[in-house]
């Protein structure tokens, strides 16, 4: 079987507040799913359930441990450009992606540093690995956090609104990098910029309390409203990709 995880009849939320209801979703190897939906619709909650940060009220999530050894899930949290004054270096942040494989008394080996070096080279961060976060640009910062997410060589990569933070000069590079990564890992990307991501993802999951899976990167306004997914399709400058027609 090629699936990474299967969510079945899952409900989840906080306290008495049900945010996700009766959700079904299967993600296979090399999938690239765009998770879209209105604010408060449950996109981040879905990621938290997958990460095991909140326990579902009901339903199951089955992981395929053939591929997800040691819960190998890479995670790029939502970021704010604000507080990155903590005195920590680029390579230390990237190394922290290996903590899941370490105990509470974590030591970084030469092999770990070698892995960090490969990621640093791959993401074009060579030369600033010893810099503190305060001295790097926003685009570099995003790549550092992406590095933290991928250093453990995850089978699944979760991205929470990376487009919120990415600077426009780096945007194309960033998606190009995701394409490359997608050859070796499945990606689940939360976004509210359907127009931009539709040229990158392979399918959509529309999350608004319920989840509607849309097995194509092409999605129309009619489909969105049928999925009860009230978001705007914003088109950007050059749009060679979004075809707003119904499909099968």
């Amino acid at each position, binding site marked *: 079987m090629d699936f990474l995880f299967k969510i079945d009849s899952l409900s989840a939320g906080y306290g008495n507040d049900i945010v996700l209801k009766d959700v079904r979703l299967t993600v296979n190897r090399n999938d690239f799913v765009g998770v879209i939906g209105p604010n408060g619709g449950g996109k981040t909650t879905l990621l938290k359930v997958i*990460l*095991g*940060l909140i326990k579902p009220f009901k339903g199951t999530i089955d992981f395929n441990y053939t591929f997800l050894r040691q819960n190998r*899930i890479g*995670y790029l*949290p939502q970021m704010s450009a604000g507080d990155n004054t*903590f*005195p*920590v*270096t680029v390579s*230390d*942040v990237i*190394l*922290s992606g290996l*903590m*899941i494989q*370490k105990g*509470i*008394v*974590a*030591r*970084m080996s030469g092999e770990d540093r070698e892995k960090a070096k490969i990621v640093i080279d791959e993401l074009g961060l060579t030369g600033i690995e*010893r810099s*503190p976060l*305060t*001295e790097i*640009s926003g*685009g570099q910062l995003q790549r550092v956090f992406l590095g*933290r997410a991928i250093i453990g060589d995850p089978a699944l990569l979760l991205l929470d609104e990376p487009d919120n933070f990415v600077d426009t000069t780096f945007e194309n590079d960033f998606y190009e990098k995701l394409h490359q990564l997608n050859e070796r890992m499945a990606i689940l990307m939360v976004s509210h910029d359907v127009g931009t991501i539709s040229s990158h993802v392979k399918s959509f999951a529309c999350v608004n309390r319920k989840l509607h899976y849309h097995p194509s990167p092409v999605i129309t306004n009619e489909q969105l409203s049928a999925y009860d997914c009230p978001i705007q399709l914003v088109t950007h400058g050059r749009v060679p990709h979004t075809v707003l027609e119904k499909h099968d």
Partner: protein
Amino acid sequence: MEGTIFQYEFIIKGLLGALFASITAGLAGTYIVSRRMVFLSGGITHASFGGIGIGYFAGINPVIGAAVFGILSALGIEFLAVKQKIREDSAIGILWAFGMAVGIIFIYLTPGYTPNLMSYLFGSILTVTTADIIALGILSVILILYFSVFYRTILYISFDEAYARTYSSYVDAIKYITTALMALTIVLNIRMAGVVLVISLLTIPPNIAMLFTKTYPKIVIGSVIAGFTGTTAGYAISYFAGIPVGATIIFTLVIIWIILKWLSQLMKKRQPEVRDQ
């Protein structure tokens, strides 16, 4: 002869006190400053004054009373903020004043004259006992071991707690233990600098170190050096000028910080930073 032995002991005690204060304050201060917990630490410091008052009243060692109060208020602030959903800064403000009030009431109720009150408020090396020095020495060893063994875990939880929760189930345990150790550091250093001044013993040295480095372990080392320099210099100045030691130490540290800040800015101007995107 008697006088010189007394002087010798006085100097050794002062130097050891300065060394252990610098080590504990450097380790704790770097954590507090990096995590932006300075206000929280101020709250813990003042809340622990309640323990000093109760200690006096009950006739037990006020440092023990302060330690209990300090640790409980540190954990209490976290508890109020997380579980009771009281805004953290408000919780700190409440416990800050509450501790001071309890301290003042119990000291007032204590029969007889309480001569050491000023030394708790403003610190005095004269009242520092051998037991205080030993306690600070033991705490130094504990903190060095704690931070070296759990370095990565503490660093990454401090840096990005939410992310740490995705891989670690002991985020809260580490946070509470570290906060308790911070409280203990503050309380034991109250003997050196006093309730009112101790917070600067923790915050100024890391800020001096951060003028020159931005990586965590180097800030710790820089803080200890800066702290020791400032403490011993302040100690000597206070001895020869006959002015209160706690205040002199803080005054010296701030002067060092101002001079070095000015020098580092001068250096930056002479070597304009070239940074590519």
